[in-house]
Every structure is written in structure tokens, then in C-alpha cells.
């Protein structure tokens, strides 16, 4: 990153003047924290006593046999407290908030996962907490709303725009410019104005550091390829950082192909042809936008990938061809999920399942001496409403109908 927060030509901090000072404080606190080895140790301590880091690297023996190619390993971020890699980022930012002395946090959430993680962190650290969530996402992920509220957070439905993640981000910024003195905005992914992309990636690098050591211990050498789904890009950046300096390791980011790239109903920014460079939500990256620069509606079965922008660091790595990008359609995702559940007893989040799709396509092309790692960013059982719905499960529907009637009396 250069001094203005750019990675190559991507990134920066396109922020309203009102936030300037707060970003100065954030940048200097982050810089201090990064240079203070005690801070990282404190971070490791809390992640190993409050969450269960290091998370395991699971050898997927049955999937490996099934595809008959590379050895498939799964990095188990689903086993984190609150069920996803989002915990890494929020706990890190929480420690920073403590350092900065702020008393309130806000966050946007798409899948609800980052909202739950933030509400959890706020409860643990005794901070006031407001979560912005697109109304459409709130309907997709109602259980998460319930838990956020139970954790003491206020969840505000965002009814503007496409009523999804990007609108929740805008709304969180609106809160921030209003309450800038008391409040820290816990951005949920490696996007947004600098220093967020770098900062979130730094906290998430814990994934890659562990995975790099684990694969050496378990497989004896680095993996041939590493797969991660890419929404904003934080889990991908997290695991990729363990292997970035080894060019022999191919890094593959998998975006939401939605109903198919050709249909326009997707969220593919770094693969596909619908995205172009732009500046929004405080940073420059590849956005799904029209010729006038208006953002487009995106689509994915996975709320957490359903986003118009992408980490500027990944945009840079894509341009430099250090990371290859692919996409997975909703249908492919449901199939990969089904297979993974049946063969390994593991339930990836819908987001994570995107990484599985591409890994499954490529595993047979590699040899048994090669290992590949899939980053399982989260667990799918939080997604029961989406997954059961997507599988069109009849007894689930019956159950919901019956429960609804009972409540409707």
C-alpha cells in the first residue's frame, strides 16, 4: 500500500471531509498496533481463548477419493466462534476500538454473519452497537437478526436502493459521519476506504499464517492451489496472505456467478465482463456499474457475496495475475454443498461453497502429490432458511407453514 492507501491503482480513501480526522486517528492507531508485537499477541490470545484458533485444517479424505486428483484440505473457519472468519476481523477491530477509547461500534451486514460477529464483539467488549442490514437481507437471514438483538445490538433495516449489502454500507457511513466522535465503523470486509482493506486483511492473515504451517505439517509441502470465495474479499485475503510470497502456489478467488455470468444476474467483478473501474463507498475498485457509473443490482444465492465492489487489494492482485478469478453459479453451489455434506459431514456456508465448486472442478486435473486448500469461510447451518429453501425441501416447508399457522392464531 502506498501512503494514500492505494494498491497499484486501486483503493484510496474517498471519504467526506467530516471523516478525515477520524481516519487519521484510525490510521495512526492501526499503524501503532501493527508495530506493537504485544498487540498481535493480545489478538492471538483472545482468538485462542474466546474463539478456537488455530482453526483446524481438515483432510477431506472422501472428497479426495471421489475426485481422484489432488489431496483436498479444508481450512475450517466455520469453527470460529459465531461460525465464520468474520470473527477474526471484528475481534481485531474491537481491540483497536478499545485502544482508541471509542464507546460505540456500528457495522453493515449482508449475510448477517458480520453483524452477528460485531454484535458479539460489542457484547464481549462492552460497546454500544448498531447494525445496518438491507431489508432484503434481513428477510433472508432472520435468525441472525434475532441473535444480534439478543446480544444487545440494535439492528436497523435499510430500505434504500437494492436493500442489500451496499445500501447497508452507505447507511453505516451516514451514521458514522453523524456520530464520528464516539463511534467506530467496524467494516466487515477488505473493502472501503484505506486503511480498512489493509487492516481487515491484516487481521484475517491469521488464517493464512495458520494454514501455511498446517499444510506443511500435514502434507509436507505447500499446496498447489488455494481456493477462497470472494465477496468483499476478506476471507480470500486472509488465506492468500499465507502463500502470496510463494509464486508456486496458485491462488484462486471464486466470485458469485449467480444465475450465470451471461444472465447479468451475478456478482462477478474480477472475472466476467460486466464490471469496470469505479469509485464508490470510499474506494476505487472494479464495480458492477452501468456506463454512467450507477451501481447495478447484483445477485447471488449467498447474501455475503452479493456485493457490487471488491477488495482493492484483490483488484490489484488480479491485475498482476497473482490471483486467478473464477465464478460459481447458484446451482453449482447447491450441488457442491450437497456433495460436501454427504461425503464429509461438513456444512459450508453458501458463500464458502463457491470456493468448493471451483476446487472440485480443478482437483481431478492435479495429481495425488498435490494438495489444494479450500477456505471454508463459514458454516452453513446459520443459513437454514436459505439452504432449505434453495433445496426446495418439502418437509421444511410443511414445518414452516405449520409453525406459521400456530403463531397466526
Amino acid at each position, binding site marked *: 500500500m502506498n501512503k*494514500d492507501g492505494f494498491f497499484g491503482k486501486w483503493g*484510496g*480513501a*474517498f*471519504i*467526506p*471531509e*467530516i*471523516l*478525515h*480526522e*477520524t481516519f487519521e486517528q484510525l490510521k495512526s492507531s492501526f499503524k501503532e498496533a501493527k508495530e506493537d508485537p504485544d498487540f498481535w499477541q493480545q489478538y492471538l490470545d483472545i482468538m485462542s481463548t474466546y474463539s478456537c484458533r488455530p482453526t483446524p485444517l481438515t483432510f477431506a479424505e472422501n472428497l479426495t477419493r471421489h475426485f481422484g486428483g489432488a489431496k483436498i484440505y479444508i481450512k475450517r473457519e466455520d469453527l470460529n466462534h459465531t461460525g465464520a472468519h468474520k470473527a477474526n476481523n471484528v475481534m481485531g477491530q474491537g481491540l483497536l476500538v478499545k485502544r482508541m477509547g471509542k464507546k460505540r461500534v456500528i457495522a453493515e451486514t449482508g449475510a448477517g454473519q458480520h453483524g452477528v460477529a460485531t454484535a458479539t464483539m460489542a457484547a464481549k467488549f462492552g460497546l454500544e452497537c448498531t447494525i445496518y442490514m438491507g431489508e432484503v437481507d434481513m428477510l433472508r437471514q432472520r435468525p441472525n437478526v434475532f441473535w444480534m438483538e439478543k446480544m444487545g445490538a440494535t439492528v436497523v433495516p435499510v430500505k*434504500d*436502493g437494492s436493500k442489500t449489502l*451496499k445500501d447497508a454500507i*452507505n447507511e453505516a*457511513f*451516514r451514521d458514522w*459521519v*453523524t*456520530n*464520528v*466522535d464516539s463511534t467506530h465503523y467496524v467494516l466487515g470486509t477488505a473493502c472501503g476506504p484505506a486503511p480498512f482493506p489493509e487492516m481487515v486483511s491484516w487481521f484475517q492473515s491469521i488464517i493464512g499464517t495458520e494454514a501455511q504451517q498446517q499444510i506443511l505439517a500435514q502434507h509436507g509441502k505447500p499446496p498447489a492451489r488455494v481456493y477462497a470465495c470472494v465477496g468483499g474479499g476478506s476471507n480470500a485475503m486472509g488465506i492468500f496472505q499465507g502463500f502470496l510470497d510463494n509464486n508456486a502456489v496458485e491462488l484462486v478467488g471464486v466470485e458469485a456467478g449467480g444465475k450465470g455470468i451471461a444472465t447479468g444476474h451475478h456478482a462477478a467483478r474480477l472475472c466476467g465482463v460486466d464490471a*469496470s*473501474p*469505479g*469509485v*464508490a*463507498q*470510499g474506494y476505487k475498485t472494479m*464495480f458492477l*456499474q452501468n*456506463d*454512467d*457509473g*450507477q*451501481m447495478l443490482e447484483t445477485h447471488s444465492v449467498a447474501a455475503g457475496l452479493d456485493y457490487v465492489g471488491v477488495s482493492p487489494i484483490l483488484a490489484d492482485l488480479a491485475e498482476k495475475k497473482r490471483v486467478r478469478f473464477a465464478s460459481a453459479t447458484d446451482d453449482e453451489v447447491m450441488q457442491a454443498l450437497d456433495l460436501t455434506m454427504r461425503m464429509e459431514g461438513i456444512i459450508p456456508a453458501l458463500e464458502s461453497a463457491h470456493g468448493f465448486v471451483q476446487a472440485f472442478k480443478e482437483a481431478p486435473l492435479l495429481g495425488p502429490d498435490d494438495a489444494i486448500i479450500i477456505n471454508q469461510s463459514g458454516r452453513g447451518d446459520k443459513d437454514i432458511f436459505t439452504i432449505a429453501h434453495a433445496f426446495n425441501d418439502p418437509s421444511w416447508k410443511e414445518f414452516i407453514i405449520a409453525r406459521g399457522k400456530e403463531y397466526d392464531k
Partner: protein
Amino acid sequence: MLLEKILRNRLEQKKILLMTHIVLGYPSFATNRQVIAQMVDNGVDCIEMQIPFSEPMADGPVILKANQDSLALGTTVADCMAFGAEMSRLHDIPFLFMTYYNIIFKYGEERFFRDCLSAGVKGLIIPDLPPEMGEAFFQLATQFQVAPILIFAPTSTDERMAKLNNSAAGFIYCAARRGVTGKKSEFDDDFNAYLARCRAATSLPIAVGFGIRNHNDVAAITGKADMAVIGSETIRLVEEQGAEAVGPFIKGLR
């Protein structure tokens, strides 16, 4: 004539200038025309025309909704540019574009400035483009003589104000408070101290915006600022009482 010069000329006649705000294409360009005519006829000194953007992150609910509705009706940047040219031709006050940086970035910065120049648009307010992020932009602004208007905020330090001042032209837009557009502000001692800091940091005219809604608000800043900015209030007015209500409203402000 340059924006600053125009404003200074007008300040010779008036204790305080008025700048108003409209969202282009909302509720329609036809209404925009009527509203602008009423504004000009009733003594408005400068109008900022917002080119709608899908992610208006610094705007509050009223303007946010106007942005979205305008886009839903099919408003394009080209429409806005043409409309800006039409208004500049028609009315003898300075017109500005307010929008977010992506609109300009996608349009092509140089092309945008060139088109603004030929449209007679005098300045640009881009709330998400701090000077550090817009090297080319600020050079082009100088080159094409379209004033890049920068914003001071209550959170801006003296150093920061000085730095912003270095890149600014036309006038300085002082945000009266934290937050987004469309909510009330207090013009109290804190505000006065802040405004004194603003004045000390720049020799450009200073406008005050965010939360100015009526005669009293305008009176409160008269003598302290050079221009009062009426933002969301006229949108609300048009929504509730139609374009004709704008003239009397403006007339009553000073």
C-alpha cells in the same frame, strides 16, 4: 467570469447570498426548470444541481430518495450535462454540479471538465473527493477554470483547513455540523467558534450549509458567512406544495 468573482460581485449588493440545491431529474427535468426559474426570479445567487448517483453516501433520506427516484425515471449524466448548459444559458447566475466522484470518473475526468466549461457550469462539489485523492481532478479544474469547491467540517483541524484551502476555488462550503444533509443544525457558540476558524483558514467566500431551513437560520449566519445553502428544504417543499411554493419561500428567507 470565475465563480469567486461572480459571488464577490453579488456580495457587494447583499449582506448574504443564497445558494439552493436541486436533484436533477427529480421529480422531473420539467419541474427542475420551474423550480430554478422561481429560485432565480426570487433572488437566489447560485444553484447546485445534483447529478444523481446510486450511492449518495453523504446525503440524508430526502436527497437519497430523490437520487433514487430520478435514476429510476432514467436520468442520465448526459441529460444532466445538457440541462446544466440550458440553465446556464437561460439564467444569469452561476450553476454548479454537485455529485459523487464516480460519476465524473466514469464520464472521464477531462471530458467532464471540458463539457462543464462549454456548458457554462462554474463549479463542482464532490463530497467524496478529498484533495489527496484527486490530483488530476484538481489540475483539470484549474486548467478548465471550473471551481473545485471543497468542504470544511467541524471536525477539520486548522491544518486541514489550510490544506483544503490550497486546493479549493470559488468558495468554501462549511458543513454546519456532523452528519448527512437534511437535518436541523444549531447555530450556537460552538458554531460561531467553528465559523471563525473557517474564516481564518481561507480568503475565499464561505458558504454554510446543512440544516438551513428558514428565515431565522439565514439570519443567524448573516454577517458571519457569505452564503447560506438551502438543501433538502426546497425538495421537501416541492414534494409537499409543488414548484410554485418555492418562489415565496425563497423570498421570505432574507
